[in-house]
């Protein structure tokens, strides 16, 4: 007998005939205010990060000696040409945040792509073949999970000069086990399904089954979680920068900007706080968009739309 959740209920099947899943998902997503809010933040901030630096002649390293320690524009003493204020060297915090966001995005997106691909391949293989292959791969994954990510990161980066590449690799290294685990368990479940058995009976090779049949079903939800992970990686990258082992100054990253500002916290609190708020808003955008898409997906799968 089909399980409770497997079949769309009779009550909604009339409505859903004719509309494809894609359109329903779009409708379910677009309905939500969270989605629009998040999208607004993202477009605003990421858009600014990509476009504004081209348009202005301001630079993150340019020091305005006469304009040091200016507070943000909306506070007394602030000016609109330095929207978020300036730091101890007179550098404009707004442009520093934008460049920081550029770097953060670059590193995080790359890291997530790497960890997703590596984790998915390992998970697919472990899940499909099972047996000893599975056991070995999973033990390796477990072993890596047991190492506190931070320790690993700090260790590696203290040793090798932290370049954007090595930071990206460290981030990817920290994340792939989770993807491997999740992919594996979903693959295990999918492997039992009838159409896989049908393909085997036809004589399909494992490679064909994994690539043509299992992946398209298993990977999309995981890929989607990966997008949310971009936010998580951005925080992680900022933390590394904060401790001093992320991308090094003078390249601005959220981590080192905020770390720099710590000593001026009492008098010029905005140096640490404003870029942080900037980061927070960007991440909020990503997460709102992500969770609203996920809710939409659940709605569609359960037939509630």
């Amino acid at each position, binding site marked *: 007998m089909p399980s409770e959740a497997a079949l769309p209920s009779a009550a909604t099947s009339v409505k859903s005939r004719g509309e494809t899943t894609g359109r329903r998902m779009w409708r379910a997503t677009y309905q939500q205010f969270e989605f629009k809010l998040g999208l607004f933040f993202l477009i605003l901030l990421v858009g600014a990060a990509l476009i504004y630096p081209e348009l202005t002649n301001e630079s993150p390293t340019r020091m305005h000696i006469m304009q040091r320690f200016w507070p943000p524009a909306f506070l007394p003493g602030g000016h609109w040409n330095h929207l978020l204020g300036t730091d101890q060297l007179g550098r404009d915090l707004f442009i520093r945040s934008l460049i920081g966001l550029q770097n953060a995005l670059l590193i995080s997106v790359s890291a997530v792509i790497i960890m997703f691909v590596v984790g998915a391949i390992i998970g697919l293989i472990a899940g499909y073949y099972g047996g000893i292959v599975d056991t070995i791969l999973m033990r390796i994954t477990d072993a890596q999970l047991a190492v506190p990510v931070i320790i690993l990161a700090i260790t590696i980066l203290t040793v090798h000069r932290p370049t954007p590449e090595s930071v990206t690799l460290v981030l990817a290294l920290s994340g792939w086990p989770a993807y491997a685990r999740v992919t594996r368990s979903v693959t295990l479940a999918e492997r039992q399904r009838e159409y896989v058995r049908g393909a085997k009976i036809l*004589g399909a090779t494992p490679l064909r089954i994994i690539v*043509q049949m299992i992946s398209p079903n298993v990977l999309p939800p995981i890929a989607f979680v990966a997008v949310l992970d971009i936010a998580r990686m951005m925080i992680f990258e900022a933390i590394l920068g904060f401790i001093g082992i992320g991308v090094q100054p003078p390249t601005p990253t959220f981590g080192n900007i905020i770390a720099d500002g710590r000593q001026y916290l009492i008098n010029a609190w905005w140096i640490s706080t404003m870029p942080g708020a900037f980061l927070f808003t960007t991440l909020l955008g990503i997460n709102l968009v992500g969770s609203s898409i996920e809710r939409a997906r659940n709605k569609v799968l359960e037939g509630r739309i």
Partner: protein
Amino acid sequence: MASPQSATLLSIQDLTIELPQGSTSRPILSQISLDVPADGVLGILGESGSGKTTLAKAMVGWVSEPLRVTSGGVRFRDQDLMSPGVQKLVRPRIGFIGADPGNAFDPTLPVGVQIAEKLLAVSPATDMAEAKRRVVALLDAVRIPSAARRYAEFPNQYSGGMLQRAVIVDAMINDPDLLVCDNIIQPLDVTVAAQIVRLLRELRQRINAGIVFISTSVPSIAEISDEMVVMAGGRIVEGGRPMDVIRAPRHAVTQELITRTPRIWTGEAAPEPQAREAQPILQVSEITKTYHVKDRTRFFGRQSVQAVRGVSFDVFQGDNFGLVGESGCGKSTLSRLLSWVEEPDNGAILFEGRNIAEMTGRERFAMRRGFQLLLQDPYNCLPPHMPVGKTIGTALSIHGVGRRETAERVRDAMAEVGLSPDELHRLPIGMSAGQRQRVNIARALVLEPKLLILDETLSSLDPVEQGRLLNLFERLQARHGLTYLFISHDLAMVRRVCTRIAVMYLGKMVEIADTGGVFYDPGHPYTKALLSAVPTLDQRPYRTEDVLLDGEPPSPIDLPPGCSFTARCPEAIATCRLKEPSLWTRHPGRLAACHVTAPSATAA
């Protein structure tokens, strides 16, 4: 028989329940009026989609969002059942048994404890010890073996039939005045369903309650109800005493339902096997398969599950060979072995005279074009993300057929199974079960096989669609000279279509014969029991009471010596406990594995 003086327990008047959809509402029930007497059985007959379950739930006051009552009402003992205050008072007096016993209990708590919990909730005067005692007594009364031990077991340790009995216990534990049974026998195996119906008839004598029995099966309603009504499209279309309604149905829906009830014993003659060639297309010889699962009660132990214990049969070209059996008989394992997705531990399978185990990889790959397997579940048998045209074509591209030829053959196959060429790029998601199965068939056909194994392929389809697909199979067989092997639990379908039938029980074949022989001259007590349990309106050649089974089959882990059927067999003799019977030839072409019916000349 409900007497005119018996009080009306439940009265439904002009009940309309609707489902809001966007700006409009779709009626699920329209102006239903009926009365349930305080004793006696009311049967409600209807197809899926007729609103039966909604009505059943309304009878216990269970109308959940998004459904809404837009007119009329339900009154229990003259109190409005739709009001929450009344519901609270009245629910202890009502029992509900649903169609999904597997999901009726919390999987994390023992079954007995949950039933006792219900008893304590509705009769707070009882204490735990007393409640437990009553639950165990009732579990025993419904013939759950080792009731005391079962009390503490979890739902996943119960079989389907046992769960249904447990749900019955749960509904009855507080001596309800009204018992509503919604489609309770449909998910069960034939013999188990027959046992449950028999159980209900017995219980009816014991308890003092009005019973509502809802079903899609005409024979079971006829057997158990005093009065019946027929539902279609959310309305009641006909009613009366079962005998009257069946003899002279007035409404079209009723007539159709009755016509569709398979005639096992009367009606058309069974299909005859055709003239044989010398070489069977498929020969199965003493295959066995045992699974080893971890024994969680010991350190390093493993338990052996003997799924298939020595099966042999031959299928000849042009035959329609039917393999029947109930849950746990090993059918699914056998189907996996036949399609060589798993290898048998012993024995051999020969296709066109060649032993599959001895083929090389290449030869086996080529052989796969010769016979194909069609599976049951229409919703899972197709990759959900591939357009159906591509799915059908994959079969060919796996075997190295070029693109152009593939496209052509796909089109031809689709036309043959009755799919229009527009469907080529469609995703399975919008298609009906029948259409999906057609895609499946096209996929198998496109390789031009000689043998098709159909593993419960039609079981999930409604009778109309089944009929259409069976006609399709007939046409294809005539055109391509196919041979079919049907694996099914549906005896009625097998009776209609197959020329030879094999009956499977606990991993072995207990009888193999031509269809007429199986039905009219069964050689094994299990076959007799199976046949007697098939719901039918015809007169049966054996009395159910004589041949119907008791209890459950033994577990395939701990098989007792001798014939595995002994414990439940009404005809067991001493030899049965000692020696396992093998298949004897009773008549030419009819074999059975039974000491009792074996020709005495070859008795051990």
